[in-house]
């Protein structure tokens, strides 16, 4: 764990609604993108001279393109329902991290220039001039929002702060004031094919290593294929699954499930990334360019189905937008969902009784499940409402004997963000990441103390990395976060695989 120059919140039984401390997070802004990061995304390299006019023109453009944005800017009645619902406000006490406070940063400029009352009686309606300081305030506080949409669950008008935050970032990008973390990564996807910048040979080497490891462990030749033409299924998974822990243990699990299902599958070096940071920066054009790689790979490889690995916002883009962004997918097999989530795929096999498990392989753990925000509030799985909550839990329960949920106010559609979503998973924002994790850490700690939970599973690469980093700040350990398909991998008994019981029986027979 790194040294800290900020105060880590203490965990209590409940998260109290804190007294306001104005401006306490104004110092925190992520590193600004350089021209090298901006230009591949078709954004100006640095802040343009006529930023004032360009900002207003872009805001005008966005509110006409997205009717939702116009409604959200107009509809707020300051009822206060959202005020204590944001993990970043609860963890920082800064009123600009209240959802309404965050929305108002953009709303006050909208009112000043685009409404009658704001033009003529600005003070009466909280309208304010757009200044250079406004831009810095936007840059700071719109990068303290993980676009998790928890606040929108509680807003009686359904105002979605995520869309306002995305619009603000799009405006900032369009005037040359972008965020390094997101934009550097999107540029890497265009150049190399994934967020990490893993070239094809490195991917191939890594996957070959996994095949060796699984063979050593099970005696079965499970394949982790790359760029295989004519395979039935294209797996698109976050590049963190190749690179990081516990992500890679999930990838190992997907491979074992595909192996047992007897299907032909492949990954693609061209579409070696499920994540789509184009959504975080509110850029339809960049989100589309990233998505098109999936379509191109599917056509090039001639697959019949597309399955997405464990990645939260990727599933939102895939489930909700992929057909609009990169469709039509009329070349895929219509008998399967387009696309399908790996948890749906595994759960179908479990329901059909096609997978064998030794659940005791996970008996050293008591699990709980962290609902990732984008999966929980922006998607579905299976064919029933709430499938996105039920299916991952059904998979965990099929492979683990010990499972409990965290407090009901902190899961399902009311789940708290991990604290690192929406383009905030960068070291320069560690303070907001740690503080924003407070509600989830509180719920987890309670489950640890009251119900003996030892590990938390998740189906999002960002959640897994974020928890790996922040758990130690709260007195827990980095290995307490696991992948759902890591649990599957632990418990699955591959056809022909010798179990420990078989081995000891053999030894007895020989002895």
């Amino acid at each position, binding site marked *: *764990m*790194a040294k800290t120059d900020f105060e880590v919140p203490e965990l209590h039984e409940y998260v109290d609604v804190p007294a306001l401390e104005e401006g306490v997070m104004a110092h925190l802004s992520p*590193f600004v993108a350089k021209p090298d990061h901006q230009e591949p995304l078709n954004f100006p390299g640095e802040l343009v001279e006529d930023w004032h006019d360009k900002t207003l023109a872009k805001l005008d453009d966005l509110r006409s393109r997205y009717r939702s944005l116009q409604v959200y800017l107009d509809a707020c009645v300051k009822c206060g329902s959202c005020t204590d619902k944001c993990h970043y406000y609860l963890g920082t006490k800064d009123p600009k991290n209240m959802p309404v406070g965050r929305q108002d940063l953009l709303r006050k400029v909208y009112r000043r220039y685009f409404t009658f009352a704001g033009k003529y009686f600005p003070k009466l309606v909280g309208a304010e001039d757009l200044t250079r300081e406004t831009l810095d305030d936007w840059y700071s506080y719109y990068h303290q929002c993980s676009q998790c949409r928890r606040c929108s669950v509680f807003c009686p008008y359904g105002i979605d702060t995520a869309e306002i935050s995305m619009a603000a970032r799009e405006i900032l990008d369009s005037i040359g004031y972008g965020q390094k*973390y997101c934009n*550097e*990564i999107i540029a*890497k996807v265009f150049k190399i094919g*994934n*967020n*990490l*910048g*893993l*070239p094809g*040979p*490195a991917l191939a*080497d*890594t996957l070959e*290593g*996994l095949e060796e*490891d699984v063979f050593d462990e099970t005696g079965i030749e499970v394949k982790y294929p790359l760029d295989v033409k004519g395979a039935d299924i294209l797996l698109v998974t*976050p*590049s*963190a699954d*190749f*690179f*990081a*822990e516990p*992500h*890679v243990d999930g990838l190992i699990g997907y491979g074992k499930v595909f192996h047992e299902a007897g299907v032909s599958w492949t990954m693609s070096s061209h579409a070696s990334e499920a*994540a789509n940071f184009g959504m975080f920066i509110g850029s339809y054009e960049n989100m589309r360019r990233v998505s098109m790689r999936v379509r191109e790979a599917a056509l090039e490889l001639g697959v019949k189905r597309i399955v997405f690995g464990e*990645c939260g916002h990727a599933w939102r883009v895939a489930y909700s937008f992929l057909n609009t962004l990169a469709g039509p997918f009329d070349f895929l097999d219509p008998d399967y969902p387009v696309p399908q989530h790996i948890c749906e795929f595994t759960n179908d096999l479990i329901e059909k009784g096609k997978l064998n498990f030794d659940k005791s392989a996970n008996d050293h753990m008591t699990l709980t499940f962290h609902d990732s925000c984008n999966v929980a509030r922006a998607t579905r799985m299976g064919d029933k409402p709430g499938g996105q909550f039920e299916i991952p839990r059904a998979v965990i329960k099929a492979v683990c004997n010990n499972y409990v949920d965290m407090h009901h106010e902190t899961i399902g559609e009311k789940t708290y963000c991990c604290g690192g979503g929406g383009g905030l*998973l960068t*070291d*320069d924002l560690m303070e907001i990441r740690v503080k924003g994790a407070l509600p989830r850490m509180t719920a987890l700690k309670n489950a640890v103390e009251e119900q003996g939970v030892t590990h938390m599973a998740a189906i999002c*690469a*960002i959640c897994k*990395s974020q928890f790996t980093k922040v758990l130690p700040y709260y007195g827990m350990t*980095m290995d307490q976060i696991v992948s759902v398909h890591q649990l599957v991998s632990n418990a699955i008994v591959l056809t022909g695989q010798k179990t420990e019981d078989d081995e000891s029986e053999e030894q007895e027979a020989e002895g």
Partner: protein
Amino acid sequence: MEIEVNGKSFETDEEGYLVNLAEWEPGIAEVMAKEDDLELTSEHWEILNFLREYYEEYQIAPAVRVLTKAVGKKLGAEKGNSKYLYSLFPYGPGKQACRFAGLPKPTGCI
């Protein structure tokens, strides 16, 4: 930003990574480690040297599992895990060790 190594100065970015990776020399790792209150031992250098070899071949840092496996094979199974790597590089092998070794910063959901 820049760092001084053996009388020469090297440009680094805002996160402390070397800007021109081709300029890397061992002294840079020593100075960066000192700034992080670390003294580089032969154990550290075993990791840093592996990172550089891998980078030369693949133009990217090795995945954590590739690294732990290689370390385990070379130095014994008890060292082939993340815990050992974090004990050497508390900010994380991916980020801190890569920075010392003159590799680009791994980016993404990690």
